């Protein structure tokens, strides 16, 4: 996987795309026969009068990584933010259509967005640990949701989450030092640990590696691969190699429309739509 990253960009225009190469042995290895964890039906998003997303229908299966790709401004981040109702925090944003998590409508009045965000965790583009200790960063979520009965419980959750995020060995001696003192990649894994500490069912990642160097990126990608054993992961990425490497399903957005979605191996090797073909071969975007 490491080698594929150093692939020469000048091959962009060649028939055999690096993304197809990146798929490697993974192509077709995973079928998505899992039950869809999240379903989006006819989702449209408006920012004021401007429509940003048009009737998107997408299933995001459990125990799999779904990658959302597309050029800048195509609505993939907007779609991602619908999934945990982060768009609610933006003035003038309006979401129509229907999104369910395990069959529950997340926009129904019965659903509290605050609790939903515990079920649907999120990792952001720029690592954003709280300016607190590493321990406090991870413990914050369980604490506000009352997930730990005792101090030992809480410690267990923190250690567990850090282990799952592959960070524990690196930070076990300095759990009570500032989380902001870690390197960028470590900070991002800390954010992942913080997200999984509240036992979410879905983890949304909004370009989680765009601020990281290749080695840190590789670590996060490995981590994603492990995490998908237990979580439904939805990732927005600008790197098509990354989408090819980590995801099982890929959805291609263009100008607010979901152009094409399907198994990653299919999208990258045999896209049905010309726009998808053009995008993944680097003709635009």
């Amino acid at each position, binding site marked *: 996987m490491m080698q594929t990253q150093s692939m020469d960009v000048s091959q962009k225009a060649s028939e055999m795309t690096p993304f197809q190469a990146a798929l490697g042995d993974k192509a077709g290895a995973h079928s998505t026969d899992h039950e869809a964890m999240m379903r989006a039906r006819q989702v449209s998003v408006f920012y004021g009068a401007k429509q940003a997303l048009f009737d998107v229908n997408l299933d995001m299966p459990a125990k799999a990584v779904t990658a959302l790709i597309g050029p800048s401004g195509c609505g993939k981040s907007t779609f991602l933010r619908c999934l*945990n109702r*982060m768009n609610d*925090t933006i*003035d003038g944003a309006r979401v129509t259509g229907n999104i369910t998590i395990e069959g529950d409508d997340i926009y129904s009045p019965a659903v509290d967005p*605050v*609790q*939903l*965000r*515990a079920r649907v*965790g*999120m*990792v*952001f583009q*720029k690592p*954003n*640990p*709280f*300016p607190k200790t590493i321990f406090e960063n991870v413990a*914050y*979520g369980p604490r*506000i*949701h009352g997930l730990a009965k005792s101090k030992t419980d809480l410690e267990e959750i923190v250690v567990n989450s850090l282990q799952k995020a592959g960070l524990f060995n690196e930070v076990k001696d300095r759990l009570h030092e500032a989380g902001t003192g870690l390197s960028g990649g470590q900070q991002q894994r800390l*954010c992942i640990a*913080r*997200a999984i*500490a*509240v036992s979410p069912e879905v983890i949304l990642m909004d370009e989680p590696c765009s601020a990281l160097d290749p080695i840190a990126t590789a670590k996060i990608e490995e981590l994603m691969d492990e995490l998908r054993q237990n979580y439904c992961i939805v990732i927005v990425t600008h790197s098509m190699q990354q989408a090819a490497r980590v995801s099982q399903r890929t959805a291609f957005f263009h100008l607010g429309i979901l152009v094409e979605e399907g198994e990653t191996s299919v999208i990258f090797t045999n896209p049905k739509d010309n726009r998808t073909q053009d995008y993944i071969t680097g003709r635009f975007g």
Partner: protein
Amino acid sequence: MTDTTVAAPEKIHDWASPTSTARVRRRYAADRRLQIYGIAAITAAILVLATLVGSLVLSGYSAFVTSKATVEFYLDPNLIDKDDINNANYRKIVGDSFAKLFPEVTVPRQKTELQKILSTEVRFTLRDYVVANPDKIGQTVRLTVPLSDPFDQLYKGVIPARLNALSSQEAARFENRLKNRGLVEMVDGRTMAKINVYIDPAKVSADDIAAGNFQAILLEGIDALFPGQRVAGIYAMFDDSAAEVIKQRVIANPTLIGSTIEGLSVPVSPAYDTLNKGEIPKIPNPRVGGENEIAWFERLQNLNVLSSPFSTELFTNADSRFPEQAGLWGAIVGSFYALLICFLISFPTGISAAVYLEEFAPKNRWTDLIEVNINNLAAVPSIVFGLLGLAVFLNFFGLPRSAPLVGGMVLSLLTLPTIIIATRAALKAVPPSIRQAALGIGASKHQVVMHHVLPLAMPGILTGTIIGMAQALGETAPLLLIGMNAFITSAPDGFLQAATALPTQIYSWSDSPERGFVARTSAAILVLLGFLVIMNGIAIFLRQRFERKW
């Protein structure tokens, strides 16, 4: 990159041409000019500040020391009733004990004058001493007690013991009008002036020459000497005995009545006599008293009983009519209470308002209007808030005048916009990523604000608050309107007692005529500036210590 051929770009600009180099030169010159303007502005600001502080220190340093005399007081058991120590005649004890230093002073009136050297406060100091040490009654105790204001100023060298008796105009008039006209002569070591006097028969009758009004005759003669100059100074030029000289002359030769004596030598007053002998005539400084007082003071200096230790009174006493006793303690306590009230009102209110506006309020016309109004509120002149306090807090709600409670309430009106604006800026400075992170793991809006945003904004909020408080500490006008410039001789015990504040104390002292208050005023300004510097220092420290780079 996909282009087939790239033509070499045409050379459109010659970077070495004279116009081009001239432009570069002009640009650098403009840079340098901008720097020079900045340095000039900073230099000017520093100069002004240094002048201000320098002049304050120069005029105020003397107030930080008090001139004191160490005197032995005999606590006469006949004068102090052991069962009623408070009401003994300490005035007499002080007077008697002090007079022992001047055994030659026996006249009662002079003894009273003598007492004026010590501060009137001394008897109370002594009373408090005796109340605290009743076992000392019957003994002699050495106490160091303050001098009264004129002698305090004299000892510090602020005022001279003697003044010039004649102004420069008076000296010049003597020189021009008398000496240069050759009218001055020395007779038996006494300076005399020649004067023409008309012995008016209407003023002197030959029957009873001694009863004649020779004073009026003399004045007419003086008027004739200085035509058109009817100023008091010309009459003071001649000695009181001048009229007597005329009288003796007329008694000796009664035929002079009705005629003019020309060139009559009459004595000039002692000051002009001294001036004519080539010395500068001096008189005792009327602030100090007469020659006696000066002699007594010199005696004290020779006895080595005078000292000028650091004036703790300046910080421990409340206001007083006597500058040597007046201190800032009452004002400091009053300011403290007022600021405490101000803080208690404006800090929670300001933060709540700012948090609501910044984090919760929808952005619409109403919140825009509120924001504009808050910003305008910060620009309202403070006296307007004072009037508001007077009209609302005092007249409508009937709160007590001069109370730190009302002062604090008025000041909080002033501080509130500052705190709101500073808090909003501090909240804005917390990056949205922190809010998103907290929201992303399911924190509610309230938790986001209370757990993350507010703690991160706190250093900025505190900085703004301290600066607002410092501004409130220096605010005078609103306090004047609610009566916090009252003359109050004790520190307030509570929020409802009449009190002064530091700036109003400065205002009242600057208005006082006693010489000692000039230094006191400067010293009070320095103390106020000291508090402001400390508060701003804390603000800077907080900012440096807790500032976070994102």
